[in-house]
């Protein structure tokens, strides 16, 4: 499966929406380790199978997970390329701020050099 490294706005918003929920982040983390059936995924949560299926659907529409049918069970797997896209967006914003803070620190260090 080929995934565009630069998704359009709607896609990006979908990824953010999908990850803005603790249960969905948890589901995603669990399928990254290994492919799992929807019923296995639902087991630890105090919610209906239908509710978990809905969460998986949101993750699937964002392209973060995929589903395959094995016999009577649906298996859910992670799509690492998409996870990387979402992570990179936030990491790069963080990098921008780290750059700003490091530059501020250098500006303050310049003062001390002038005083000496």
């Amino acid at each position: 499966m080929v995934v565009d490294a630069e998704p359009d706005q709607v896609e990006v918003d979908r990824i953010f929406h999908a990850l803005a929920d603790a249960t969905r982040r948890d589901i995603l983390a669990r399928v990254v380790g290994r492919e799992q059936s929807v019923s296995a995924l639902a087991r630890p949560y105090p919610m209906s199978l239908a509710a978990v299926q809905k969460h998986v659907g949101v993750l699937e529409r964002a392209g973060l997970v995929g589903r395959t049918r094995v016999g009577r069970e649906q298996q859910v797997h992670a799509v690492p390329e998409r996870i990387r896209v979402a992570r990179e967006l936030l990491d790069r914003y963080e990098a921008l701020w780290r750059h700003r803070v490091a530059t501020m620190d250098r500006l303050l260090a310049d003062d001390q050099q002038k005083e000496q």
Partner: protein
Amino acid sequence: MPVLDVEKDLDRSTMTVTAEFAAPVERVWRLYADPRQLERHWGPPGWPATFVEHALVPGARSHYLMRGPDGEESHGVWNVVAVDEPRSFEVEDAFADAQGVPDESTGWIRMVATFEPVADGTRLVVVSTFRSAEQLRQMIDMGMEDGLRQAMGQIDGILAEDRATA
């Protein structure tokens, strides 16, 4: 490294940066109040900023431009919402045209900066709240180089934990 902590909260669309500097609060405040100092740290790498207008007083509007490596220009504005010198200030940041008219389609990013004296200097906490993923993307698409990426994200942490237990 002066950055103490970076917290990314996807639920509330915020990012909180906590840093400490070895300088008194009044000095760190000047990094934002003085346009000549502000422009030296505001632009992303490779995109130096120039503040054409700037005053850190409530109701004021700042206008800045950033020049990219190929000579392209990107403009931005700040609305200064609140100022409690030298403890905190709140601004709204948006992309703008060359005349400094804000681009309402991408919307404003709210930024609240708090300055607190600590034993060795000043603790600065900056909370940025963005309205959409697109806003964030435009911001970071500018001049951010691959080498600067840091693998510290919340999702990254979850994935690392998962790999460790798998």
